[in-house]
């Protein structure tokens, strides 16, 4: 009788191995993606948002700390590095589009990067946020792997930055087209670019719902925004703070 493990023992064993939380991460994402597709791909039902909420609920319910969870989830997290390198491919594919309009694209992205960073830092500082929060907020419009790298370099909290990046992405995808309509921006190249600059990959997914042209410009904006911010933001923030 005693040689058979009871459910509690199995739980103790499983919760200590990386397998459980790696599997849970993939299951939660598949659930989030399923809900997203069932909703007709509504930006509010973003699969990242859903799966993060589901996983946090599970971890709180089972009293699991983040370190234990991350021991399993790190295998997914690790892929952010190679995925960042891989962004060179869509960037290269869009090269003819860049060459054609390189000056408007470059000036718009530099303007967008400046407005995004300065507005979030100024407003948050005005409302009394401490320095570490400001540094974590600054790269919020940059795609997560790069934003986390910047945050780490400048002394922010990479995990807080990652969450703020996801929030910004969902926010821009939900309100983006309404804001663009209210300022009468109707050119699809401009709409796509604005979505990519503000909301990185999540904005790009939204732009592809408008059409392929908007989507391509959004993907391009996301890549260039990452490149510009990665090189300029650490220097700018070091100079300001």
């Amino acid at each position, binding site marked *: 009788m005693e040689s058979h493990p009871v459910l509690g023992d199995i739980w103790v064993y499983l919760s200590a191995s990386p397998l459980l939380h790696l599997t849970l991460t993939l299951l939660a994402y598949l659930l989030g993606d399923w809900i997203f597709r069932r909703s007709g791909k509504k930006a509010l039902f973003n699969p990242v948002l859903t799966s993060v909420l589901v996983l946090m609920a599970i971890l709180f319910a089972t009293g699991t700390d983040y370190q234990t969870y991350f021991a399993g989830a790190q295998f997914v997290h690790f892929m952010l590095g190679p995925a960042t390198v891989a962004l060179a491919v869509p960037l290269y594919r869009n090269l003819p589009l860049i060459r054609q309009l390189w000056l408007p694209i470059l000036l718009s992205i530099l303007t967008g990067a400046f407005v995004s960073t300065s507005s979030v830092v100024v407003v948050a500082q005005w409302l009394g946020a401490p320095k570490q929060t400001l540094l974590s907020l600054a790269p919020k419009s940059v795609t997560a792997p790069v934003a986390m790298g910047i945050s780490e370099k400048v002394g922010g909290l990479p995990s807080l930055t990652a*969450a703020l990046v996801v929030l910004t992405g969902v926010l821009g995808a939900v309100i983006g087209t309404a804001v663009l309509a209210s300022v009468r921006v109707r050119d699809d190249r401009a709409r796509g670019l604005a979505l990519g600059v503000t909301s990185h990959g999540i904005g790009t997914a939204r732009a592809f719902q408008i059409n392929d042209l908007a989507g391509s410009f959004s993907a391009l904006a996301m890549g260039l925004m990452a490149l510009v911010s990665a090189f300029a933001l650490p220097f700018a923030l070091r100079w300001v703070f």
Partner: protein
Amino acid sequence: MAFFFDDKGQVLMILKFITLLLLCQLAGEVFVLWSGLPVPGPVVGMALLFAGLTLRGGIPAGLGRVVDGLLSHLSLLFVPAGVGLMRHLSMLRDEWLAISLSLVLSAVLTIAVTGLVMSLLIRWTAGPSQEG
């Protein structure tokens, strides 16, 4: 590089291009450590791969497929970091107004300004407008 090819070419091709992505990242990390520049290593890796593609003048078909597979579910890779929010819940409770208001205002401002600047510059360079 002959050791990458045998009669199971499909799997080896995927392995080869995953290795290429890792090599670019590794070179990027080494460059950052060596130069001390405050830039994330994978971004230097991206720049290296981009330079390589430009020199080669095209994307190898296999690389395109590996990258499309990796990027088609890019959102999944953000999940472990997003769950990290649970470590900052008490901080978010104290600063929720500053964080939420700054995120919303900044998003509205960035979308509006970037969209306006881009559409004005396109008109200014006299490209044909493509409205939808």
